[in-house]
């Protein structure tokens, strides 16, 4: 073990102790039975399997067909990516309500640059990702330099971006985006599933690794749990929060790239409707695998749990309002479960 690693571990242990002291009007957590802990960690996975079995009881031909899941995995990949972007600032204690707008901006930039201005699709994608990072940087300036709550800043920048998207698109849907992108996103398949899903899976693994096994991931978590304690322990809180907002913008832009590739077109507004599903999945994901923390594999499972429910409801032919109940109810139930895990302490 090198000196710096040992030093880091010592500081982390110290930080954790201070964090407990800071939060800890509470006594140290009691040792919970292992079965209860396992039930909590894997409850959503079990619920997912049960959901498939229950829906499959009514519609076995569709619910037990691999193709149904291949199609669903491919078509919801961009929601996974958007959710992954969202959960980075959520981990550091910031809300980014502009992620869906950033997704729309990236999607429209690709269409405008590629279709209207004749850019190569690669160049257009790079510009879209840079634009996403720029949005994150602007959010960071207002949140950190002006000291405004992230909820207010990102609500405002989200609306501002919506205006830019309407402006650059002339309020039009733009179709005819390079088939190269469409081919890479949905037409090319591996194990019968469009590549979009494998991109989302790879990003999930990367973020999971970063959160669980790197110093950066630990710093993100500490900043979210107690900014003052983290600052006193030598963590550059402002830099961590700025970085998380910039990462969120970049990943939301990546979701926009996938969304454009999914349709070969971009429109000014439809991406905005993914904000609630992304929040629902982020919060639902925080109740599983690593309960009480926003975590990438949990979010990944949550997106497909919700999508499986929607798919089953479609197969059953229920009216569309039931699907809204499922999504909206999912968010409230997820947050409630999350709060129970947090012993009903007020949320930050």
């Amino acid at each position, binding site marked *: 073990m090198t000196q710096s690693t040992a030093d880091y571990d010592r500081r982390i242990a110290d930080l954790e102790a201070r964090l407990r002291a800071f939060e800890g009007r509470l006594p140290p957590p009691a040792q919970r039975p292992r079965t209860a802990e396992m039930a909590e960690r894997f409850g959503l996975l079990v619920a997912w399997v049960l959901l498939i079995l229950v829906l499959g009881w009514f519609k076995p031909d569709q619910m037990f067909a691999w193709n149904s899941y291949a199609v669903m995995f491919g078509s919801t990949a961009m929601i996974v990516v958007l959710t992954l972007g969202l959960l980075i600032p959520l981990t550091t204690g910031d809300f980014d309500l502009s992620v869906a707008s950033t997704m729309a901006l990236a999607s429209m930039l690709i269409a405008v640059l590629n279709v209207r201005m004749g850019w190569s699709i690669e160049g257009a994608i790079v510009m879209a990702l840079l634009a996403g990072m720029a949005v994150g940087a602007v959010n960071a300036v207002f949140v950190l330099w002006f000291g405004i709550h992230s909820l207010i800043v990102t609500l405002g920048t989200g609306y501002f971006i919506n205006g830019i998207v309407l402006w650059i698109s002339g309020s039009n849907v733009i179709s005819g985006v390079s088939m190269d992108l469409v081919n890479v996103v949905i037409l090319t398949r591996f194990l019968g599933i469009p590549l979009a899903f494998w991109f989302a899976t790879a990003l999930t693994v990367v973020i999971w690794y970063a959160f669980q096994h790197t110093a950066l991931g630990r710093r993100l978590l500490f900043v979210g749990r107690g900014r003052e304690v983290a600052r006193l322990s030598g963590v550059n809180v402002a830099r961590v929060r700025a970085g998380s907002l910039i990462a969120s913008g970049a990943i939301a832009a990546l979701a926009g790239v996938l969304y454009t590739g999914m349709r070969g077109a971009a429109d000014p507004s*439809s991406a905005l409707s993914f904000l609630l599903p992304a929040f629902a999945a982020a919060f639902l994901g925080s109740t599983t695998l690593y309960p009480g923390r926003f975590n990438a594999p949990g979010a990944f499972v949550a997106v497909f749990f919700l999508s499986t429910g929607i798919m089953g409801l479609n197969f059953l032919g229920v009216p569309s309002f039931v699907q809204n109940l499922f999504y909206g109810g999912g968010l409230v139930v997820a947050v409630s479960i999350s709060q129970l895990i947090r012993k009903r302490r007020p949320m930050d």
Partner: protein
Amino acid sequence: MKYLASAATLALFASPALADMDAARALVAQYSALPAFEAPGDPFDARACMADKSMFVVPLTNANPFNAAISAGMSQAAEIVGFNLRNWDTQMDPTQWIQGINTAMAEGYDLIDLQGGIPAEMLAPQIGEAQAAGIKVTATHLWDATTQETAAFMDGAANTDYVTFGHIIAAWAMVQTEGKVNALVLGPDEIPPTAPLRDAIIGYLAENCPDCKTTYINVPVNDWATLGQSAVQNALLADPSINYVLPVYDSMAQFIAPAIQISGSSAKMVSYNGTPFVLDMMRDGDIIEMVVGESLGWVGMAGVDANMRVLCGLPPVTVLNTPAYIFTDENVATAGMPANYNDGYGDTFISGFTALWGIE
């Protein structure tokens, strides 16, 4: 003779079970021809009548090219006749619609037109106020011409024949499948024109095509992105024999085309509107087979024609004379590259209206 009589009897008994293919083919052929101008009413001297009059147009939203194109047609008509017409800027915001009505009252306009989908019932108090101030209030392209009633408190309305558009969509699918349509019909029920379009498509197939089958899914506009695509792909997975997806508005194509593609279905899409990006998708791909559209510049001029008749005390025109026109791969290039809302329909309506208004 005896055999002929027997054959006739058999045909009589058999006819209810046979699809009325001839009628469907005739309908498709009729609306595949380039639109011709038919005067909506008697000629009149528009310049003399409108010399001291003005019009104020409140569109549903300027952010929608559909409304912007109708407004442009209205402005073009006002320019030809030579009267003051103002297009108000709105963004689908009821407070902006009300501000528009108040502005028109404050500035002394003679007529307010609620253009392209503003639900007039929501503005009944403001409309009553404007009327009390001596302003006529009308609507362009809101209600269906045959199945919906113009609100009694309006001074006039130029309505759209949505039923015919629905019939054309259904007839097209019948003709292409030789009477074996298995269609998934989609629409947002909260939008007023959805009901006449939806009922016309489903009703036409039910009445004229015994071997045809339809399934309807309501997808509210706000859920098109999140639920629309999944609804279509799951319906196609549940019933792979679906051969047509018929959204009542073609803007849904951006969610339907990937659903058809990703589910590996060979279904085709047919719809109504003639939205430019959908025509571009038709030109560049294979999923969108036919779109039946209407020239929005024509709609704008027809709306102004109806409004001028209200202001001039002439017999009212209640139906827009804008004909339907079928776009397919064969003629989609005439809609422009990229497509736009006005190209492809011909320009007979400009000379037609100009002559109708006594301007040469």
